[in-house]
């Protein structure tokens, strides 16, 4: 059978090798090295801080956040989970992973929200950014691990950079969506009263998009967590390293311990950020929520609206 291969063969792999090894690495390595400096700084500070703070204090802080933002039950779960991680001897690794995740989410936020705002207000920018996001979300992460190692080397920071690439799209997409979905008549109203572009953004668009943006932040966080094990392949430490070591030695127990640690961290972080995205629904338990629902939806809706909007307003003011 005839196939196009008989006519022309494209040495795509050679081209890519030449491009990365012959062009990017020799000419741009210093540039990429410089890029990772802020990431390294933040990571090291955070890692050192979390290693220094006693386990009980960290647990107390997380339990408090879970209690205020989600519910008392969630706070209890956080305490039990963190205690379990400590008892199986993985507390230091968990803190390393936590600092990696906070660092990557921080950079995702710093890059993602402004990008999201830009593409929401500029259709041309969105046309350019959208296919890039599609590629970022479809290319398997293993594919860009190799060039990252070549450009950034191995270690924690390259792991975080891979995580940032992997976890960035949702927050850009959700910020864009949130801002584009602000009701057209509210935009008209803001304009009709003489708002400048910035005033429109700070007073109307961002506060009203905040819930969607927080949902994007939650997605980004979850993706960052799922990247922990893969990032460990290029030298990032923490729980991912525990899992990888367990895999390499066929030590089921060790791999499992690392996995459980990741799951516990994931549940606690997910619930807290979801709580930030959704306004509180009055009662903390199912029974209370049902009761308040039966008693009167209106007062509750009003309460939740107050709770949900207080934060963005303060920021805007």
């Amino acid at each position: 059978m005839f196939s196009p291969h008989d006519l022309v063969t494209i040495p795509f792999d050679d081209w890519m090798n030449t491009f990365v090894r012959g062009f990017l690495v020799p000419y741009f390595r210093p540039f990429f090295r410089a890029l990772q400096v802020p990431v390294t700084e933040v990571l090291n500070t955070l890692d050192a801080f979390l290693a220094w703070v006693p386990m009980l204090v960290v647990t107390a802080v997380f339990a408090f956040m879970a209690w205020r933002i989600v519910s008392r039950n969630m706070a209890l779960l956080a305490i039990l989970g963190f205690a379990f991680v400590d008892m199986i001897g993985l507390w230091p690794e968990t803190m390393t992973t936590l600092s990696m995740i906070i660092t990557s989410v921080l950079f995702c936020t710093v890059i993602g929200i402004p990008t999201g705002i830009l593409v929401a207000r500029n259709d041309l920018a969105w046309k350019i950014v959208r296919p890039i996001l599609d590629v970022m979300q479809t290319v398997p992460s293993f594919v860009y691990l190799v060039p990252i190692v070549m450009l950034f080397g191995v270690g924690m920071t390259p792991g975080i950079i891979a995580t940032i690439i992997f976890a960035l799209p949702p927050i850009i997409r959700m910020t864009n969506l949130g801002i584009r979905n602000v009701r057209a008549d509210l935009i008209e109203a803001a304009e009709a009263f003489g708002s400048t572009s910035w005033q429109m953004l700070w007073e109307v668009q961002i506060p009203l998009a905040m819930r969607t943006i927080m949902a994007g932040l939650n997605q980004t966080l979850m993706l960052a967590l799922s990247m922990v094990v893969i990032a460990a392949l290029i030298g990032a430490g923490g729980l991912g390293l525990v899992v990888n070591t367990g895999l390499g030695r066929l030590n089921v127990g060790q791999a499992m311990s690392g996995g459980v640690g990741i799951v516990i961290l994931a549940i606690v972080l997910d619930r807290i950020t979801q709580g930030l995205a959704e306004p509180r629904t009055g009662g903390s338990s199912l029974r209370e929520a049902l009761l308040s629902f039966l008693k009167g939806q209106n007062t509750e809706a009003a309460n939740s609206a107050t709770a949900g909007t207080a934060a963005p307003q303060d920021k805007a003011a």
Partner: protein
Amino acid sequence: MTVKLIVKKLSKLFNDPKGEGLKRLQRGESKEHIFRETGVVVGVNDVSFEVQEGEIFVIMGLSGSGKSTLVRMLNGLIPPTSGEIWIDKDDIASCGKARLREVRRRKITMVFQHFALFPHKTVGENVAYGLKVKGAGKEERRATAINALAKVGLQDHADSLPSQLSGGMQQRVGLARGLATDPEILLMDEPFGALDPLIRREMQDELVALQKELKKTIIFITHDLNEALLLGDRIAIMKDGSFVQVGTAQDIVSEPADDYVRAFVADIDRSRVYTASDILQEASQVPYTGTAADVLKVMDENEIDTLHVVQKGKAIGFVTRYDALSVDPETPVRKLMQAEPPSVTEDVYLNELFSAAQSGVPVAVTDEKGRLLGVIAPESIFEHLIPDEEPAEDDTDGTGSPNGDEPEKAPETAVLADAGETEKEEGRA
């Protein structure tokens, strides 16, 4: 009165990047024709008008007539394709962004159909939004917001969220927000369209009351002719992006420009269009110092049976023929008159006249100071509630009545007219 807003030859074409549609429009091609050939949508077509300071100018049209587009061009939310919009010395159509922002901050605000209150801000913050973007301080904003809310009776709700208020209350907040920056021009885009009928009536009355005090220049958009007639000092009827007729409520009801307007006017509530001053007749009167004989003389001259007694220009009572005949001719008027004749002020609408007219005695119409301007015979109120004689003229012209309703209405008219006649005759007998 000075002219506050001048609109000259304003047009808006959508989907017309090459200007092809505008050229065709200027050549006089029809809206449908242009759309079919080029895909260009004509939103507003060559509209010109002027609005006086302190006037409520109502733009009335059905959906798709271009009224919302027109009002959005007035504050630059939609840039016009061609034409000029002058507010004082600024042409909204051509001034720069910064200048436009200044005009919006100081001179022109808007009230929206679906309120468009910011859900994340309290009522007070919503009202103060225009001041905030201007850079006013916190205390000033708060004080102005409370002040503006007081005008619409919501000063106690400044710290509520819009979602906690009913629709009518939300639109009051929208109105307060529009008034807070003390603009010269207020654009109202179907502000009461999303409210239920009872609340709508209440809001209309409130706007009328508020306007008496504030005297803003208001451009009011509506699809409800009754609302237009109630509120508008002048009304523009819009169809297919152009004005069909511009005039006062009475002009439009009594002299519709074409069949389109006539069809609209056919079933409106005339008792809310005409005021007492529109239908009053010259009063036959006797002076306070006259006698029964004088009364009978005037009555005979004018072929009437009731006379108003006037002292210093004010109607202080009335005399009927029966009263005058049953006493000695030399009896002074003040002995035989009945005090406190039914009376109304000249700006009262006919629908408010019914109770004054129910005694059967002609109603005295007075000006603000109580001076007698004229009288309204009870039966003449009904005459003005019937659609005008135009349908009758149409009938003589031929059968081609433009409005299918009219033939059905004709007999009704006759019956009412008869009733009026008989009443008159009975009265004379």
